[in-house]
């Protein structure tokens, strides 16, 4: 049996999804990146291998997410795709009438506008943490609430506290202020959810033509409080697909399936095999002093051999020494 693997390395979590020839999910794993994408990809591969029968042959592998280039080198990707495209592809495959995708992940948030099965517009916030999952996680920690229980608290709120959400710094001081005034925990938590949505809609989604069906995916879609906040803003219900957290990885797997099969690209997959998890990878960085640009170059080596380099303004370091 043939399998197509999608690897989504985000800043907070690492997701792997394995599809069969009919693009059905046969194995998946969801891990925390913990600032160590190399180890998480290796661990993810081990977990996937455990879940499948040895007959499954990996016929294509694609990487996505902010760690896609690194992961691509690690696993031997046939395709390296940006996370906007993979999320859109997965949603369109599963929800044929989708017109708007909200995706809120750990460190970034996106909106994708689709009409007639084609992406026509997108927005992405790649640096501001105020509209993302890590913001919620950080505040949960401060309130001493487990992030998993966040949604339950939010649903119980009747008079949500109004919390400034433009910037995490202000949100935090505002939240502490409300705490000191004695606001109930439930109301503070739901207030945070509302402020996140307000920030998201005023930022990433500003000026976008949001039309149903609305699909909400990414790790934050697990949070019932955020869904409630979304539903209060829009007339139509926000739909959270099953495997919302895996959509990036699923989209990558779908795309590599198309790449390898539908296009009749009869190349053998570059997949380095599950044995990759035993290779010693090392990442390092240095400052190139060839000109006053002083670019920071990062590199990855496996078993002592440099595999790839990134980060220069020019292409001086892009070519990896052949060996």
């Amino acid at each position, binding site marked *: 049996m043939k399998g197509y693997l999608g690897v989504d390395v985000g800043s907070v979590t690492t997701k792997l999804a394995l599809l069969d020839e009919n693009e059905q999910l046969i194995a998946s794993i969801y891990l925390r990146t913990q600032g160590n994408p190399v180890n998480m990809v290796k661990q993810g591969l081990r977990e996937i291998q455990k879940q499948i029968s040895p007959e499954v042959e990996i016929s294509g592998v694609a990487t996505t997410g*902010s760690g896609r280039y690194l992961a691509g080198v690690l696993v031997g990707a046939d395709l390296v795709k*940006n996370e906007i495209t993979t999320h859109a592809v997965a949603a369109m495959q599963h929800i044929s009438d989708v017109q708007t995708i909200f995706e809120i992940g750990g460190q970034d948030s996106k909106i994708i506008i689709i009409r007639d099965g084609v*992406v026509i517009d997108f927005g992405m916030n790649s640096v501001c943490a105020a509209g993302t999952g890590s913001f919620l996680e950080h505040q949960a920690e401060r309130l001493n609430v487990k992030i998993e229980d966040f949604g339950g608290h939010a649903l119980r709120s009747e008079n949500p506290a109004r919390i400034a959400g433009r910037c995490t710094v202000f949100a935090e001081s505002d939240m502490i202020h409300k705490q000191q005034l004695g606001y109930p925990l439930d109301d503070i938590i739901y207030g945070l959810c509302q402020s996140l949505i307000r920030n998201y809609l005023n930022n990433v989604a500003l000026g976008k033509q949001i039309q149903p069906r609305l699909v909400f995916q990414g790790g934050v879609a697990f949070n019932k409080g955020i869904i409630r906040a979304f539903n209060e803003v829009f007339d139509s219900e926000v739909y959270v697909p099953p495997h919302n957290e895996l959509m990036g990885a699923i989209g990558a797997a779908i795309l590599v399936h198309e790449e390898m099969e539908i296009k009749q690209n009869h190349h053998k997959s570059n997949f380095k095999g599950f044995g990759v998890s035993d290779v010693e990878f090392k990442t390092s960085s240095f400052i190139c002093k060839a000109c006053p640009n002083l670019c920071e170059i990062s590199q990855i080596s496996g078993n002592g051999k440099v595999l790839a380099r990134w980060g220069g303004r020019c292409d001086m370091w892009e070519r990896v020494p052949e060996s």
Partner: protein
Amino acid sequence: MRVGFPHFGNVYIPVKAMTRRLGAADGEVIIPPPITQRTLDLGVKYSPQEACLPYKLTLGSLIEACELGADTLIQARGTGICRLGYYAKGQEQMLQDLGYNAHFLTLDVSHNKFISIMRLIRDMSNNIPWREIIPAFFFGIGKLFALDKIEKVVQKVRAVEVEKGTASRIYREAINAVDEATESKEVKEITKEYIHKVIQVPKDPVADPLKVGIVGEIYVVIEPFANMDIEVELGKLGIEVERTMTLSRWIKYSLFLNYLGVDEWREVHKLAGPYIDHDIGGDGWESVGEKVLYAHEGFDGVIHLAPFTCMPEIVAENIMTSTKEDIPVLAVTCDEQQSKQGMLTHLEAFVDLIGFRRRKREHGRRV
């Protein structure tokens, strides 16, 4: 007098050519080092935070010229354009605060540009007679025309070359060769030679590249450092790039043909007409019109480059989203906070978007 000026695309090439031709002694004209991260850091450090990227980069470049001993600096001025009108005043003040007592010579870019530029050259050249200045000037700008001509071909070849980076490498060689040339005839030969070289680059025979038009504020559109080499990056993604705005075009019209009543933007302004019918400063009006133009010409997409906080382009961006011409637009904001990785993710997604769109139109499916 030791004259310095800020970098802006290939502007330094005609300046160098002209001054050499007019027999300037060593050190009379100071060409600052190419724009690098250091230039940007200097500019950012000594600019108001909300100033736009072109202000910061030109200030950084002027500081680097002063470090090499420039005592007279050239900067643009004008009325009714945008913050550019205040660049010279603000930068002069800042350089004085830094202890450089440089004198500013300004070039009026809103009225009577030809007279303004000629006067500037004469002010700098110790009253060399016009009969020497004029041919030197034409020799200088001839080099710009040559380079823009080569670059047009490079923009096409980058998209389809087999080995990525080849056309850009040849273009860099061409810049050096044109820069070194001492005669107009030589410039012509070099142009022909390098265009031939670029055309000869091995290309993917079946490639049918997507076409993207670049519009926006002139400095960030023309200066590759400011837009993080967006044209080269698009080339790597297999995209053919076209842009109307070039230095040679500006010279051709602003310094000559406008005087004969030829308005290079007439068509573009007419196309923008239903949405905006007057100048909003900077290049905002043109950006809107060019978006419509590229849609009419069947391009697959438009990339709109704007410096962060650039009012004319912000207005243009918002008008563009509501024009009826159906063409995807990617707005790219250029400033010192923008990470190249973030820009590349946006570019990749945009390229997928326009690719899906074309395939859907041509074959009715995404793949």
